[in-house]
């Protein structure tokens, strides 16, 4: 729905004017600063709203509106039923409109602090941010918070929209006062390219046309600004990067690599590599939606063919051989946490960077930001809506660029391995070159040598289950049975680990995760030294047990679930712990007020209510024999 008469036919643009393409902008500001009203009014003034929608709006304004008998323009934008009734914007809503000069996409995001994640989402897809301020209230905490996020997400332009000028009698000095205060803050956080415009959304001053009520203002109206602001295609000038999205092999004849060019340009004849590997090849053709081309630039979806048979897969990044990208398996990044479950340092998460998926674990944050005072605050974890800086370890090296240089190559999302929900957004600051500084030495005495010396293979028997299930009893019997078979063993349990190595840890979820991570790493080293390690820990979380499994060589990890109901364990209660927990004296006690996640596919499951400890130990020995770790006699 273009605004008015348009003689250029299908192009939707006035002939002769430069085609500026699509502008994506974001509106943010405090709760009552009038974002939705601004957008609704802009659409209405430009006659971008159809009559039947206006009729519906009139009817709804009477029911839900806040403007008496007048049309409440905010209702045009606030989409979901719950929001209309509560009068707030919960989610990110996208709106579209076009004028003779440009096509616009608006992300309207909520102002409340508890919706920081929604604002980050909106900002990640925008070129320009409109930050609204109520002229009668001035710069507020929310204004600062939103400006900080806009700067963190590195938007190209910021407009400070000083709204409700009608409430301050269109006062120039009031406007200048707000501008001065804001500039001081904006300079402090390093915000570039800020433009200030005084408006009244309700009265339509300086929205689409320059207002006679503010003749002292000689800048553009908001719409004029949006129609003409240049979004310099920064990404085109960067080194060429084409992340491989899909290997295209429709038949035996054709083999190509499809993806969207992240930065720079790709030409036929370019000498490329597929990072992280270094084999060189030449581009032989480039296919786009408009057919074959000789050259394509950032933003275009292409399929390229090359002149050699290199092994290239989804997630690799095509780059010029003369402009090699960095790669690392350890990164420092800003993280915005978006889940109600806090980040657990050490726990494995999935990260998706472009088309590359890796397993990642976070260290405790180096700090989190107080986003209103900009102070660095110490923290052990990241909670919902907190923004911090963390070191991240990956199970594989990834090709990347710092976020400020390339959004496409420097951003990632974090996915929980259990729920598969998106729990965080990350922006890479730089790679930490651990992989280049610390080399794992390849010793001449290796696993095979040790197996010869010991006379048996090594591995980890990981016993998990509720307190009182009988893990320790079974572990002791198992160790005796193995000793009688000439197998070297060692038991790691709460008694010998909690009092030494892990005495700095308590029983919060984060500490439990770290506790198990350390135990898993120690077990791995001991198993590597040639012995059979018996680990006896409640280890209630599936993710940590999976971590322990993943760091061990295939086939040498035996998860043993000592399975018993809470009722049975509680009736045994050998150490009187359940009694204390029930009395509230032991917080976070597994089975009472902290969950136990039952193993899905353990190597051995022992029904501890039916099998005796001796029978249980025999079942485990049999499993080790069957796997070839130890011999039966």
């Amino acid at each position, binding site marked *: 729905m273009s605004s008015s008469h348009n003689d250029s036919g299908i192009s939707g643009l006035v002939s002769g004017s430069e085609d500026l393409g699509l502008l994506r902008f974001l509106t943010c500001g405090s709760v009552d600063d009038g974002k939705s009203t601004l957008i609704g009014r802009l659409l209405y003034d430009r006659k971008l709203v159809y009559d039947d929608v206006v009729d519906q709006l009139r009817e709804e304004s009477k029911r839900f509106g806040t403007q008496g008998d007048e049309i409440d323009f905010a209702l045009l934008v606030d989409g979901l039923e719950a929001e209309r009734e509560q009068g707030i914007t919960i989610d990110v809503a996208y709106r579209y409109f076009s004028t003779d000069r440009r096509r616009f996409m608006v992300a309207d995001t909520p102002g409340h602090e508890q919706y920081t994640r929604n604002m980050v989402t909106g900002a990640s897809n925008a070129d320009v941010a409109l930050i609204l301020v109520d002229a009668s209230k001035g710069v507020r905490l929310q204004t600062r918070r939103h400006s900080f996020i806009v700067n963190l997400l590195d938007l190209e332009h910021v407009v400070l929209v000083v709204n409700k000028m009608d409430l301050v009698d269109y006062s120039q000095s009031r406007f200048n006062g707000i501008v001065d205060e804001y500039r001081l803050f904006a300079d402090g956080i390093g915000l570039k390219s800020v433009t200030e415009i005084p408006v009244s959304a309700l009265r339509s001053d300086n929205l689409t046309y320059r207002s006679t009520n503010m003749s002292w203002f000689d800048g553009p109206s908001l719409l004029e600004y949006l129609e003409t602001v240049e979004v310099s295609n920064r990404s085109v000038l960067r080194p060429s990067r084409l992340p491989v999205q*899909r290997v295209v092999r429709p038949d035996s004849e054709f083999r190509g690599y499809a993806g969207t060019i992240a930065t720079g340009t790709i030409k036929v004849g370019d000498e490329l590599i597929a990072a992280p590997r270094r084999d060189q090849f030449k581009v032989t053709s480039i296919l786009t939606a408009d057919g074959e081309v000789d050259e394509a630039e950032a933003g275009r979806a292409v399929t390229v063919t090359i002149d050699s048979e290199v092994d290239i897969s989804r997630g690799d990044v095509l780059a010029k051989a003369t402009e090699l990208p960095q790669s690392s398996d350890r990164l420092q990044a800003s993280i915005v946490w978006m889940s109600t479950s806090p980040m657990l340092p050490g726990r494995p998460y999935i990260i998706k960077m472009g088309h590359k998926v890796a397993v990642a674990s976070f260290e405790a944050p180096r700090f989190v930001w107080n986003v209103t005072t900009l102070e660095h605050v110490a923290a052990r974890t990241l909670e919902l809506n907190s923004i911090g800086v963390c070191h991240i370890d990956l199970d594989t090296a990834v090709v990347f660029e710092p976020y400020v240089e390339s959004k496409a190559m420097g951003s990632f999302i974090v996915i929980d391995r259990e729920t598969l929900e998106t729990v965080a957004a990350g922006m890479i600051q730089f790679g930490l070159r651990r992989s280049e500084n610390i080399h794992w030495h390849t010793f001449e005495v290796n696993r095979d040598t040790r197996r010869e010396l010991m006379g048996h293979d090594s591995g980890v028997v990981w016993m998990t289950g509720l307190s009182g299930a009988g893990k320790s009893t079974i572990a002791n019997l198992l160790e005796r049975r193995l000793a009688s078979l000439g197998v070297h063993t060692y038991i790691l349990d709460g008694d010998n680990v909690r009092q030494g190595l892990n005495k700095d840890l308590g029983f919060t979820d984060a500490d439990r995760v770290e506790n198990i991570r350390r135990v898993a790493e120690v077990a791995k080293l001991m198993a590597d030294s040639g012995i059979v390690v018996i680990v006896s820990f409640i280890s209630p979380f599936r993710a940590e047990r999976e971590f322990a499994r993943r760091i061990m060589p295939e086939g040498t990890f035996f998860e043993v679930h000592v399975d018993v109901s809470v009722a049975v364990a509680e009736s045994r209660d050998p150490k009187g712990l359940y009694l204390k927990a029930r009395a509230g004296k032991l917080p976070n006690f597994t089975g009472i007020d902290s969950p136990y996640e039952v193993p899905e596919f353990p190597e051995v499951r022992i029904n501890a209510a039916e099998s005796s400890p001796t029978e249980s130990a025999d079942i485990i020995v049999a499993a080790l024999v069957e796997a070839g770790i130890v011999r039966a006699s």
Partner: protein
Amino acid sequence: MNKSKPRHLQQLVDESIFIFREAVSEAERPVLLYSIGKDSSVLLNLALKAFAPGKPPFPLLHVDTTWKFKAMYAFRDDLAKRYEMDLIVHQNPYCLENNINPFDHGSARHTELWKTDGLIQALQQHKFDVAFGGARRDEERSRAKERVFSVRSPSQGWDPKQQRPELWNTYNNKLAQGQSIRVFPLSNWTELDIWQYIAIEEIDIVPLYFAAPRPVVDRDGLIIMVDDDRFRFLPDEKPEIRSVRFRTLGCYPLSGAIESNATSINDIIRELETGTTSERQGRVIDKDGIASMERKRQRGYF
């Protein structure tokens, strides 16, 4: 092929292609929900481009109600043949058996049984985990907040409060057991973009979008076309021939026409640019209450 597209259209095309490729890269059984309308035609055109020089790696699924316009069925069958795409047509067996129709059962019930339930049956029967749809965010207010990759529970329900955040263009397409994803490559297109693209790419669409003399009756403020002899006239009601066209197509007794003389795509675009009513104005099913669309989608409607 016209290569001088307006820049925003080229940006939208590239974005849609990116979405198609990303969705199939981690899908086991993708499918394209084909509704025969103009948006479906654009969707298919983009799918063909996204996977060229190969064929799109998925079939088309049409959830049929037996009440579409005759011209739509003819168009559908011709198109599947022309592009050599597999076409699955699903008709809810319960509806067939009980002759569910808009005249006896009303628009809401008719739509829920044939389309909402029919779609769920088809998706579950074929175990599709990714379903492409042609919905656009500009169609209706509650759509404005739908994600590009929209996760559905095993019962195909949609919970607007439990949506995954979508950051940059990094889509989380991981699925838990039984979940599926609806993917909307046209999310950021507007009605005008669709028509401009159809004009530039010379995409075939059902002739009902162009004005022609057609037999119609006036009902509850809508102009309804009499497409076959199943139509139930009210007492004293008689069809008259008027020059009309359709902005959206669905079941013929539920699709309101507009009076128009637009016989070419350029006529249609001109009409849109000066027009004063929205696309959904002609849909009977949207009039079931202010937030009716949002509620339908929570149930699983597309």
